[in-house]
């Protein structure tokens, strides 16, 4: 196993150094170019001492030795590369988070071990990578629930803060519960104690750290994290091209003189990272499986041959047995043909009636079944008699059957078998029965010598057949009837189908029209949105200038203006402010119309109280009596409902300002499927004759001198309630106050 591993490591290392070596000419080519381009920069003085920092527990890459000095593969590589590039290095150790910050802010010059990620590329510049590693998931051996990356979703995942494992779990959204630790040592100790479900880190680092901490109840999963692959590089501060160039140069030199390989071998020589590439897998399978397949094939051929030999022997034996049986059969047939008696016995044992006739139609033999059927009591009654005259003398209808027409005799007249099932045979007592018969010519030496007739009584089966025929006819009638009914139904269905097709066509047309309309609507919505956006920006700018510059006029030239002049300017400013309010209200209305409804169960009682608290000034709260009953909650958009109550309560306060009674009453009435809310004031009220104008945009029932406003508030309320599929209304009388109400469906 060790041998395999070192072999594998060596092969991989050889490949890696080949890639690096092939980079060297390229780097050498780039160096003069860089030097040229950076010669114009202010910092061309060569630094000879640089400061670096390494983290203490990222074995074997970065750690501390017994004396507390930085140590590890990355540190040693860095020192070697720096030395080759003629640099002196002052190295210290520090927590990863802090030393990363140090580099970003220029307190140190370089870090020997930084995994290259897109996030970090923004802050650092990276040397060429000197190693690539894959990450792993470490779990407690007792836990069985974690097999894949997806299983981590609801699990607590431990990572080192600021490590690229943290970036990876956050970027790939691995888990909702991420616990960060200062070091990986801390993370693995926690996992070992059963705090947290998994640690994600570099596989090698994790394995080494576990070994070093002597933790035995934590293991890595045998699973690749292709998204968490890591190129380890040296990092310098973004833009420090000079140092980067020298570090790359140093790396190239130690790769070329093989001290890189030795350092690497010393630190990684005996560690298994358990990663096998697909190519290696293929090679191993070739080594093992091809000989195995050849061996199996040979074995199979031997077994097959033996099997064929056995089969051949068994077949030969079977053939000889068959030959024996055939000869025995021949022998038995000979015996049988000799025994005429046996044939007679055979004839008499059959259920069918059988008799033979010669060419004149006279009986030559008759069997027992025939005699029984025809009520012939002895052979002598039939033998030698003309059988047509004896049993076949009449047709089914009872009329005479001439012998010249006899169908049975056709057998030897035509020289072939005849058959009938619609004639009668006649018994000795004169009664007839329906019979079916075959008549076959008897040939001796190819000459017709007579015929043999086989017959049986079909009275019963004929009757059954006729009954069956009747039933069949009846069935046919029914089938026909049903078929015609079905046809009719099919016709109706066809018509319906046609109607349906027309309807579908209509639907398609309407859908297409709807689609076009929707497109138009979306278009005009977009235009409207652009318009509103433009209004909110562009229409305000001139107002701001009018207001602002009027103010400057007042401030800078007040001594040149008399009181009337100042009043004019103030009027200009007031109007600009009013117009701004108007724009704000209109934008508000448009926002109310287009914002998405998000209905939730809303406590209207608390909402109305909260709004009153916000809207009423301190003085108003002292003056007003605010009475609110315990009113039910309802499903609605919280933000929009708040707007409704703001407008309603503001109105109630505003229109009560000049009245004697300062009271606002809020109540509700719960119906079966809806709730109606009421707000009543004892203020200026309105003339019910103009009730219909109340909710119209820019419609006012009071002059601006009496009560300020622009007629948008109630329009907004109506729009919001309508969007909730509710109703809104009001009642009132001049100087007696007003009741506003709105009704919302419960669902």
């Amino acid at each position, binding site marked *: 196993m060790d041998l395999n591993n070192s072999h594998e490591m060596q092969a991989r290392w050889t490949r890696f150094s080949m890639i690096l070596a092939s980079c060297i000419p390229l780097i050498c080519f780039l160096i003069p170019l860089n030097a040229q381009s950076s010669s114009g920069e202010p910092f061309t003085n060569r630094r000879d001492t640089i400061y670096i920092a390494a983290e203490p527990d990222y074995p074997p890459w970065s750690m501390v030795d017994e004396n507390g000095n930085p140590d590890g593969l990355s540190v040693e590589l860095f020192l070697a590369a720096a030395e080759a590039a003629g640099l002196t290095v002052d190295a210290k150790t520090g927590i990863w988070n802090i030393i990363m910050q140090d580099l970003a802010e220029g307190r140190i010059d370089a870090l020997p071990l930084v995994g290259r990620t897109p996030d970090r590329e923004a802050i650092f510049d990276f040397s060429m990578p000197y190693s690539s590693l894959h990450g792993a998931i470490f779990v407690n051996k007792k836990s069985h629930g974690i097999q894949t990356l997806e299983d981590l979703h609801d699990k607590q995942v431990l990572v080192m803060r600021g490590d690229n494992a943290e970036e990876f779990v956050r970027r790939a959204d691995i888990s909702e519960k991420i616990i960060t630790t200062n070091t990986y040592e801390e993370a693995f100790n926690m996992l070992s104690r059963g705090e947290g479900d998994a640690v994600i880190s570099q596989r090698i680092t994790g394995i080494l750290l576990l070994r070093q901490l002597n933790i035995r109840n934590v293991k890595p999963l045998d699973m690749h994290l292709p998204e968490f692959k890591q190129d380890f590089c040296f990092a310098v501060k973004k833009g420090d091209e000079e140092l980067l160039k020298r570090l790359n140069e140093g790396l190239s030199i130690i790769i070329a003189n093989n001290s890189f390989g030795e350092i690497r071998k010393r630190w990684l020589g005996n560690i298994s990272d358990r990663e096998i590439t697909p190519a290696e897998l293929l090679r191993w399978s070739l080594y093992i499986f091809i000989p195995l397949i050849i061996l199996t094939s040979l074995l199979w051929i031997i077994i097959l041959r033996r099997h064929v030999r056995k089969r051949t022997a068994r077949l030969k034996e079977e053939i000889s047995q068959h030959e024996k049986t055939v000869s025995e059969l021949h022998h038995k047939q000979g015996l049988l043909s000799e025994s005429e008696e046996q044939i007679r016995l055979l004839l008499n044992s059959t259920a069918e009636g059988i008799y033979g006739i010669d060419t004149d139609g006279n009986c030559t033999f008759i069997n027992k079944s025939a005699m029984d059927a025809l009520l012939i009591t002895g052979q002598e009654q039939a033998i030698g008699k003309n059988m047509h005259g004896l049993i076949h003398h009449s047709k089914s209808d009872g009329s005479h059957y001439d012998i010249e027409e006899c169908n049975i005799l056709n057998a030897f007249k035509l020289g072939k078998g005849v058959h009938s099932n619609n004639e009668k045979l006649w018994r000795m007592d004169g009664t007839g029965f329906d019979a079916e018969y075959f008549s076959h010519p008897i040939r001796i030496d190819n000459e017709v010598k007579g015929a043999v007739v086989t017959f049986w009584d079909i009275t019963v089966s004929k009757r059954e057949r006729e009954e069956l025929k009747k039933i069949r006819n009846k069935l046919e009638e029914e089938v026909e009837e049903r078929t015609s009914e079905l046809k009719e139904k099919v016709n109706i269905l066809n018509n319906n189908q046609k109607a349906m097709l027309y309807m579908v066509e209509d639907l398609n047309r309407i859908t297409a029209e709807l689609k076009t309309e929707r497109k138009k609507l979306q278009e005009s919505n977009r235009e409207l949105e652009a318009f509103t956006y433009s209004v*909110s*920006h562009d229409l305000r*700018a001139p*107002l*701001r*200038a009018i207001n*602002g*510059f009027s103010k400057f006029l007042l401030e800078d030239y007040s001594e040149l203006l008399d009181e009337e002049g100042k009043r004019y300017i103030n009027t200009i400013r007031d109007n600009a*402010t009013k117009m*701004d309010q108007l724009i704000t209200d209109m934008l508000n209305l448009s926002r109310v119309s287009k914002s998405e409804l998000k209905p939730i169960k809303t406590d209207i009682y608390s909402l109305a109280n909260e709004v009153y608290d916000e809207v009423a000034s301190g003085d108003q709260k002292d003056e007003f009596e605010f009475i609110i009953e315990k009113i039910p909650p309802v499903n609605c958009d919280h933000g929009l409902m708040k707007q409704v109550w703001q407008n309603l309560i503001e109105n109630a306060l505003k229109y009560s300002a000049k009245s004697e009674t300062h009271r606002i009453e809020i109540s509700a009435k719960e119906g079966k499927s809806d709730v109606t809310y009421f707000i009543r004031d004892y203020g200026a009220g309105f003339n019910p004759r103009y009730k219909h104008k109340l909710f119209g945009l820019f419609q006012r029932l009071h002059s601006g001198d009496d009560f300020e406003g622009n007629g948008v508030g109630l329009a907004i309320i109506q729009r919001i309630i309508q969007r909730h599929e509710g109703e809104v209304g009001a009642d009132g009388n001049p100087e007696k106050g007003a009741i506003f109400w709105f009704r919302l469906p419960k669902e």
Partner: protein
Amino acid sequence: MTTKQEIEILIVEDNPNDAEMAIRALKKNNLTNNVLVVEDGEQALDFIFSRGKFTDRKGMTHPKIVLLDLKLPKIDGLEVLKVIKENQETKIIPVVVLTSSKEERDIIESYNLGANSYIVKPVDFDKFVDAVKDLGLYWLLLNQFPN
């Protein structure tokens, strides 16, 4: 004012009236030293990154605060904000977004991109002076740069 001087406040505003008002509002708060107005997003970025006609500013310190309008010619304000806040070196410059819009998406987008404050330019100039006082002063005086 030449751009060779240290600039403390950069106003990015294409409407000269608004720019004048902003300067006046700053003046009211005794903050008139070294103010520069540029008229579009491109000039703003040229200034911040010392390029184009501001090449000679290379090596000079960044402004202490940027007042940034959103609706600007060439490169709009959100894009300017994004570029400033994505750059490691410039992201520490406080940027106060100044706009006439109360559009929620503008406010949210500005904060998402890293704006330090957001002032809706009110029509009433007095309120504008107050807003500049509250937010501008905070970022200018209380927020010291790390040296």
